[in-house]
């Protein structure tokens, strides 16, 4: 009889724990869905074809966010061009040249770098680049690249470390030098995880606003050269959300929606890539 009571108590505890787990799940999802709901509800009303093909309007005129979309992609693209190769190389170094004395130091400073607030990185670039060539796409791209590098480095390192030793040994036993094994065997085996890390770092910088503000500032025109500023979705949200005009606030919600959709799109792409297993 006591045994049965004991069993009932265990079942009871199981129910309680399950309830708590579901409760936390709901608590986590409420903010996410209320944000999404609010952004979609307010953003969807301004979205039209014009919204995607017209640039920032002046007061009272019709306009869109085409220049901000263009600017965001150019800035992210240039940042990736700078940040991805460096992150990739450092990741390879940390994983494949683990025995090197420098690797401990590199790993430590990479972790430090990933913890630096993005506004500090922005100010750093401000003193380094903006003060000599001015607010520009280049300055913003460098700031975003610095934010990307530790993310790409870490995910690349982790991805490469997952490649089984048996594959490396097979390649070494074929009499292949290490510099040939890394791109053809190791990187190729881990390419999906590596690409995932790169995409996630792009998603991360797509929504950055603080470092953009101090390196490029707000700009309402089309792209006019890498040494000039360009419009940006995150800054659209920042500037228009606090404006006194109804139509501009709507523009902010629309920009927010497009930004979220871009980031969501990247995350979905990651899911699709990861679904097909590497091996």
């Amino acid at each position: 009889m006591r045994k049965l009571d004991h069993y009932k108590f265990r079942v009871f505890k199981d129910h309680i724990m399950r309830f708590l787990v579901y409760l936390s799940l709901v608590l986590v999802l409420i903010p996410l869905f209320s944000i999404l709901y609010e952004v979609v509800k307010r953003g969807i009303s301004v979205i039209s074809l014009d919204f995607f093909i017209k640039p920032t309007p002046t007061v009272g005129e019709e306009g869109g966010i085409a220049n901000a979309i263009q600017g965001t992609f150019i800035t992210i693209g240039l940042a990736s061009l700078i940040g991805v190769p460096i992150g990739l190389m450092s990741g390879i170094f940390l994983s494949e040249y683990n025995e090197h004395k420098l690797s401990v130091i590199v790993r430590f400073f990479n972790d430090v770098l990933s913890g630096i607030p993005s506004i500090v990185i922005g100010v750093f670039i401000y003193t380094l680049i903006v003060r000599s060539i001015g607010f520009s796409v280049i300055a913003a791209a460098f700031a975003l690249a610095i934010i990307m590098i530790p993310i790409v480095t870490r995910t690349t390192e982790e991805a490469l470390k997952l490649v089984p030793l048996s594959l490396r040994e097979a390649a070494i036993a074929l009499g292949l030098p290490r510099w040939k094994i890394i791109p053809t065997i190791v990187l190729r085996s881990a390419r999906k995880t590596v690409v995932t890390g790169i995409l996630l770092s792009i998603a991360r910088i797509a929504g950055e606003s603080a470092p953009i503000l101090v390196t490029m500032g707000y700009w309402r025109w089309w792209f006019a050269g890498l040494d000039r500023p360009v419009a940006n979705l995150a800054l659209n949200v920042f500037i228009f959300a606090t404006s006194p005009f109804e139509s501009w606030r709507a523009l902010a919600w629309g920009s927010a929606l497009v930004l979220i959709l871009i980031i969501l799109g990247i995350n979905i792409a990651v899911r699709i890539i990861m679904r097909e297993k590497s091996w």
Partner: protein
Amino acid sequence: MVVPKIKVENLNAWFGKKHVLKNINMEIKENTVTAIIGPSGCGKTTFLRCLNRMHEIIPGARVSGKVIFNGINIYDKGVDPVIIRKKIGMVFQKPNPFPMMSIYDNVAIGLKLNGVRDKKALDTAVRQSLELVNLWDEVKDDLNRSGANLSGGQQQRLCIARALAVEPEVLLMDEPCSALDPISTAKIEALIRRLTENYTIVIVTHNIQQAARISDYTAFFYLGELIEYGPTKQIFENPKHELTRKYIMGEFG
């Protein structure tokens, strides 16, 4: 007297502080199969991996002594381990084809990465290597499919073909049949016998009967030492050492 293909002199190996191979002296003859037997943890695999400098890729691993291959000590300063491994190939316990590559590329990769660009030369090498391991007829229509979909025995033969494609002189095999069923094992054993025409083979095996079936010479290792080494017939019919006799009789292992 045949000149030994590989001559091992005072070979010692460590993992960190653990002394796993103690003063091994041994001569491996050309175009023969030499079996390495002994209980688990006796240093068989480490010994094998010392023969093509695979031991040193493990962090903390260390080797001393000489392994003289074609008259050159492979541990001499200035000897590139990459070139040694090209000449002394290896097949592992668990079949490990490159899963992201086609069957064709699995065999061709060693040559491709060593600079062979000529498509015809690659085709010929792939075909010859696959024919040598009797896999050609089974896979000739699926050369562009992934090697990961083959059966375990086929995968292991693919790995042997991959090792043979770079034209080594010696083939080291680390329990190549331990993950395979009896039929696949029989195929690989027959293949090993055939390969002695052109290759020198050193095989580590847990299976004493296998050593008796396929090898010309047998070395018995125990606790990191070479206890007895000689023609397989003599080791099995008339072992000189009590430990060897006990191991072969299955009294421990």
